[in-house]
C-alpha cells in the first residue's frame, strides 16, 4: 500500500491488517500517556480544500499520538481562485518535505489525481473527495461494526471480518462518499448491504452495485438488520427537488422514535444505529435514536482516531517495507 485513495481497491488482507493495527492503537488511547514514538520526526500535512473540523481534528490527533509533526493547510476557496492550483500546492508541500498528505477535497478524484502525478512523492491519504469516497470513515465504521459483530458472536475481533453481517445504509446515497466507501469495504469484509433511499437519491447506475436496493426503510428493518447506518442529509439539497420537504423525508426515511420502538418491540437487541456525523437531529435521525444505547455515534468518533493512526503508521513507518499486498 503506497496510498489510501479508496476502499474499492483495498484488499481484504490490507483492510483486516488496518483494523487489527487500529485495535492496538485504540489501546494506546486508553493509556495515561496517549503517545507512541513511531512517527517522530515525520511531517504529516492536512491539506483541506473543504472545511471539515471533525475529520481534520481526528487526523491531527492520530498523527500527534504517533509523535508526527502536523501542518494544517486550509486551501479554502481555491475552487474559484485559479491562482493556486492543486499542482502548485502539491509542489510546495513536496518542497517543504511533507512525508504524507492527508487531503480533503470538494472534487471527486482529486486525491487520486494527486497520487497519479509526479507533483509530489509522499503517500496520499484520501480524507474525503467530493461525492466519491471517504475510506477512513468506512474503515472506522468497519472497526465499529467488527467490534460489535465479534461481541454478538462472543469471539475476539482481531483477525476477523464481517461475514454474515447485515448492514443497511440509509439516506442520501447519491451525494455520499461515506456510502460508496462503506459499500465496497463491507462487501470486501463479507457483509450483506442494503441501500435504502428515495429513488432520487440513488445514483443512476447503482442498480449494478453489489447490494440490495430498497425505497422502504420499514420493510428493510422488518426483514432484520444488524446495523443501520444513517447518512446525513445536507440542508441545501432539500431545495433541489430531491424530495418534497423535510417532513416527508423524515417520515419515510428518517430514523425516528417510532422506528426505534419497532426495533425494541421486535427484540432486535443487537441492532446498532450508526451515523457519521454531524447529525441533523429530527431530520434523518431523532434525538431518541441518536442518544439511545443502540447508537454508536461517539464510539465511531473515537474509533476514527485509532483507525487513522493505523493508516498513518502503515503508510509512513518502516512497516510498509514488508509486503502488504497491493
Amino acid at each position, binding site marked *: 500500500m503506497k496510498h489510501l485513495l479508496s476502499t*474499492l481497491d483495498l484488499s481484504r488482507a490490507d483492510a483486516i491488517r488496518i483494523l487489527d493495527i487500529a485495535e492496538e492503537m485504540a489501546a494506546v488511547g486508553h493509556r495515561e500517556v496517549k503517545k507512541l514514538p513511531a512517527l517522530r520526526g515525520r511531517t504529516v500535512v492536512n491539506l483541506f480544500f473543504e472545511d471539515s473540523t471533525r475529520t481534520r481534528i481526528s487526523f491531527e490527533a492520530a498523527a500527534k499520538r504517533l509523535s508526527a509533526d502536523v501542518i494544517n493547510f486550509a486551501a479554502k476557496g481555491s*475552487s474559484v481562485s485559479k491562482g493556486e*492550483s*492543486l*499542482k502548485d500546492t502539491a509542489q510546495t508541500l513536496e518542497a517543504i518535505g511533507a512525508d504524507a498528505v492527508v487531503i480533503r*477535497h*470538494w*472534487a*471527486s*478524484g*482529486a486525491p*487520486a*489525481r494527486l497520487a*497519479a*502525478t509526479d507533483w509530489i512523492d509522499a503517500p496520499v491519504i484520501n480524507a474525503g*473527495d*467530493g*461525492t*466519491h*469516497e471517504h475510506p477512513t470513515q468506512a474503515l472506522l465504521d468497519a472497526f465499529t461494526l467488527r467490534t460489535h459483530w465479534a461481541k454478538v458472536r462472543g469471539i475476539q475481533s482481531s483477525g476477523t471480518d464481517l461475514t454474515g453481517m447485515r448492514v443497511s445504509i440509509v439516506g442520501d446515497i447519491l451525494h455520499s*462518499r461515506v456510502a*460508496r466507501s462503506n459499500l465496497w469495504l463491507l462487501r470486501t469484509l463479507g457483509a450483506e448491504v442494503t441501500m435504502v433511499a428515495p429513488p432520487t437519491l440513488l*445514483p*443512476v*447506475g*447503482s442498480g*449494478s*452495485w453489489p447490494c440490495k436496493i430498497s425505497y422502504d426503510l420499514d420493510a428493510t428493518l422488518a426483514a432484520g438488520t444488524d446495523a443501520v447506518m444513517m447518512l446525513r442529509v445536507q440542508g441545501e439539497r432539500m431545495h433541489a427537488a430531491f424530495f418534497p420537504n423535510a417532513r416527508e423525508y423524515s417520515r419515510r426515511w428518517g430514523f425516528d422514535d417510532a422506528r426505534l420502538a419497532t426495533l425494541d418491540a421486535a427484540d432486535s437487541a443487537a441492532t446498532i444505529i450508526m451515523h457519521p456525523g454531524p447529525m441533523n437531529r429530527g431530520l434523518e435521525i431523532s434525538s431518541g435514536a441518536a442518544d439511545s444505547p443502540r447508537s454508536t455515534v461517539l464510539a465511531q468518533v473515537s474509533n476514527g482516531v485509532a483507525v487513522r493512526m493505523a493508516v498513518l503508521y502503515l503508510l509512513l513507518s518502516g512497516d510498509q517495507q514488508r509486503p502488504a499486498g497491493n
Partner: protein
Amino acid sequence: MSNTSYLIRGARPLGAAPADLLIVDGLIAALGAEAAAHAAAGGATVIDARGQIMLPGMVDLHTHLREPGREDAETVETGTRAAAKGGFTAVHAMANSNPVADTAGVVEQVWSLGKRSGWVDVRPVGAVTVGLAGERLSELGAMADSRARVRVFSDDGICVHDPVLMRRALEYVKAFDGVIAQHAQEPRLTEDAQMNEGEVSAVLGLVGWPAVAEEAIIARDVLLAQHVDSRLHICHVSTAGSVDIIRWAKERGIKVTAEVTPHHLLLTEELVRSYDPVYKVNPPLRREADVMALRAALADGTIDVIGTDHAPHPSEAKECEWAQAAMGMTGLETALSVVQHTMIETGMISWADFARITSTTPAAIGLLADQGRPIAVGEPANLVFVDADARWIVDPYAMATKGRNSPFKGLELPGKVVSTFFHGHPTVLDGELNTPVPTNGDL
C-alpha cells in the same frame, strides 16, 4: 497559387489500382497513363507515392482554432498547420472565440487569418446567437454576405436551447442555404455534469451527463427542422439513442445530417476511472454499446461525417482536478488514423467511404465549392496521400497543434499522412510540414 507542377507516381486513388497523377497550376491536369505523357509533365517534380492511398483533402466541419482571444491555446496559424499535417485542406472554425464570431467583422478576421496562413481553407462558423447567449439571433445574413461567406452557424459549446430561437434560426438561414449545427445538450439535465451518467459515474461520484440530455434535444430539433423544412446538422453525436432518432428522421426525409468525432468511435467512459482530465470532453465518452452503435451508424450512412471537435487547451487547463479541468481533446492530427483503426481495419467502411465521410459530404454540408471534389481531371488538387501500412505512437509533444491534450497519447495507431496538397501545393511532404500556399495579396 503555385505554378509548380508535380507528377505523383503510383498512388492508389481511394485505395483502388495505382495511377499516376499530374498537378499543374493547382489543378489535376492528368490522371492515369496519360499523366506521365502529358506535355506539362516534363518540368514536373516527380514524387514517388507507390503504395500510398490518394484521397481528397479532408474537410473538418468542427474545429476550434481559438483565435481571436485564446491564442495561448491555439492560433489560426498553429491550428491550420495541425490540420494540414492531419491531411485536411479545409476546416470550419467554431464560433466560440473571444470575441465570439457573431458579426461579419469577426468572421472576416478569422477568414483572412486563414487566408494569410495558407495551410488550409478556413471557413468560419458564425454564432447563431449574439455572444452565444441564446437570447437574440446574430447577424446571420451579414455573416453570410461577408467575404467569409459563412454557411454553417453554431453556438457550439452551448446548446441553442430556446425552441423558438432554434426555430427562427432554422427558418432564417434558408435565405442563403445555411445550416444550423446544433450542440445538443439539454442544459438543465446537465448542470455541473462531469461525465456520462451511468454505472461508472455512480462509482466515481462524478455528476452524470445523461444520454437523454442529448437525445431530447435532437428529437426536438429534427421535428423543428421538419416543420420549417430547413437544414439541421447535429454536432458530435455520442449515444446509441441519438443514432436511433437520426435514423428515424432520415427515414422521414427530414433534412438532417450528423457528425461523430474520432474519439467517440474509440474511447469509452471506462477511461475516466483514472480521473485524468485528458479524457474530459463534451459530450462525454460513453459506453461500449454507444461506441459500437456510432460505428455502425457511420458505416450505414445514418451518421454522415467525421467532425474532429479539435479542442486544444493550454496545459494548466488539464493539469488539475477533474472537476476543474476544461473539456476537450485535440484531434486534427489523429483523425485519419483513428478512423482507419476503428472503421477501415474493422472492415466496416472502404477508403472510398472514408473520402465520403471526411471530404465529400462535409464539403457539401458547408457548401464548399472547391473542396470534397472527385479525383478527376480539371478538379482542384486538394489531396492527401496516406501510408496506410505505417504505424506510429501518438506523442502530443510532436504535434503541430499547441494543445497537448490528446486522449490517444502513447497509443499505437495505423496510417500516416505522407503528403497533403492544398490547391496543388504540398503543405506537407514526407510526413513533415512543408510550406503554406503563398498568398497573392488578394485578401
